[in-house]
């Protein structure tokens, strides 16, 4: 009876997996921090029992792998313990990264769609642009990001814009490839139909190619927005930025605050799922208007 309840059906599987993962996490935390804690006890030459050892692994100050409750309490402290605009608040840092992510995503989407339009409408551009676009993604971004920031800083662009440009650079590629596929998705019969009505190329684009490309657009947007977030975080790393999730990660690693690092990672995971969820909700709303099966 309980198994057929709609809430249980929807959430029981995912909750089971989450609980299993948390259990594995706890076990891993104990195992990984064991030598650390034992070494600490032996240094103080204090006697210890096994329960003390285990509870010690789950409450160490600088653990190798923080226990889930440690991460959660540090996360709650950073989010609720400070005002949202304070430099120590995780909310403040998340907003900084989020603004760079969204701006980069927008720029990348515009660039990606523009490139796809050019590639679809001209054979010459297709042959000349596509190899360069693919090449551009082969260099690891961790190597390119400092160069970008230094060069852009030299021409006077600082702060939000260089990070957004790096994000855009990373996320335009899936959008370009997805939209090229989308714009060439209409089958020959539909194209022939437009030809029998002697539609102009602009009409074919707006009435056939664009609507046919929408599913591909949303699929590539979901990929692109996560990449954009990664790009924004990576852009904050190499130059020691003062704000943003990447900055928190950096600060945590400088000062050995592993719990702070993990709290920042949790924040970025929540941000990423939220962004994908947003794109997914938009996709559903657009889909309903465009005749998708509910």
């Amino acid at each position, binding site marked *: 009876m309980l198994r057929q309840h709609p809430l249980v059906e929807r959430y029981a599987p995912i909750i089971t997996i989450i609980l299993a993962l948390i259990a594995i996490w706890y076990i891993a935390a104990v195992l990984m921090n064991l030598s650390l804690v034992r070494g600490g006890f032996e240094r103080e030459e204090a006697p210890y029992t096994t329960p003390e050892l285990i509870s010690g692994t789950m409450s160490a100050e600088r653990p190798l792998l923080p226990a889930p409750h440690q991460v959660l309490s540090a996360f709650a402290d950073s989010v609720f313990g400070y005002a949202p605009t304070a430099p120590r608040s995780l909310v403040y840092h998340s907003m900084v990264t989020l603004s760079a992510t969204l701006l980069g995503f927008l720029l990348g989407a515009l660039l990606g769609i523009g490139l796809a339009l050019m590639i679809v409408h001209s054979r010459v551009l297709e042959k000349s642009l596509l190899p360069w676009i693919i090449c551009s993604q082969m260099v690891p971004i961790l190597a390119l990001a400092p160069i970008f920031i230094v060069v852009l800083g030299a021409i006077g662009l600082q702060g939000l814009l260089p990070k957004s440009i790096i994000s855009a650079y990373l996320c335009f590629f899936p959008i370009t490839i997805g939209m090229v596929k989308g714009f060439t998705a209409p089958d020959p019969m*539909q194209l022939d139909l437009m030809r029998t*009505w002697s539609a102009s190329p602009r009409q074919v684009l707006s009435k056939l190619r664009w*609507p046919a490309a929408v599913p591909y657009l949303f699929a590539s947007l979901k990929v692109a927005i996560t990449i954009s977030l990664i790009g924004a975080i990576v852009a904050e790393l190499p130059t020691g930025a003062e704000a943003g999730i990447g900055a928190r990660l950096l600060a945590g690693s400088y000062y050995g605050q592993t719990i702070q690092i993990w709290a920042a990672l949790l924040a970025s995971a929540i941000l990423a799922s939220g962004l994908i969820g947003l794109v997914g909700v938009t996709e559903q709303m657009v889909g309903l208007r465009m005749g998708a099966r509910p």
Partner: protein
Amino acid sequence: MPKSLKLDNPGVTLWPDEREPFVAPIATVPMNKAADATAEPVSSPQRLAVDVRDVSLTFETADGKVDALSNVSLQIAEGEFVSFIGPSGCGKTTMLRVIADLQQPTAGTLLVNGMSAEQARLERRYGYVFQAPALFPWRTIEKNLKLPLEIMGFSDSEQKQRAARYLALVNLTGFERKFPWQLSGGMQQRVSIARALSFDPALLLMDEPFGALDEIVRDHLNEQLLQLWDKTGKTVLFVTHSIPEAVFLSSKIVVMSPRPGRIIDIIDCNFPRDRTLEIRETPEFLKIAQRVRVGLRAGHSYDE
């Protein structure tokens, strides 16, 4: 747009009372001509909807040349219902596509409504119905009907009127807000036919439109198509591979054969315009069907 079209009349009939009298087609071509049949030019004062003279189309493929069409000549008068029948690969779809300017012939000349095929396409002189409905899945039925009208620049009120009118013509009023996936195959094909007619072209080109449907739906749609043709008086070019369908619907049957694609026989049918499916068991019907089959055999359609 023809003057005779009354825009403020919401009724279904499109032609006013002073319609041109239907002139019976020319004398029948003798049966024992197994070689390429060329029709005699129409001598009556009817206008020619389609005038094909010595058209050939050769594909260059990796295995050599393929003669899709080889010296095909044909004259089709206005108001006729012409079926093209033959086995696969005989060039009937190619013939239709050449008339529609979706493909260009490698030799010969072609006039559609007195102008070149390309000109006819640019002036939107025909509607094309494909084998599949080819409706846009992201548009409602009404918006699908309005699509050619949007492209051709009709006003909004005109679009709405025409969409309603032609949906009523195919008996699908009430389905405006539905999406194509909510309709059956036969209904989608009816919408496709309504869409082809919505901008009132002189010519209707149909490429095996009922091929993917089951027999009962096909019979039903055959009757509906016949009534539509009777009501609108358009010239219809219909490609099929079903002998009963061709004999039932047409005023003229063009039998084609493959390798190379050519016309074997042109048969005229004079069945009454208000015929129903029951005539399929009459001896006259069977005689013409037999003649079609003889033509197909002569063209080696039943050989390996």
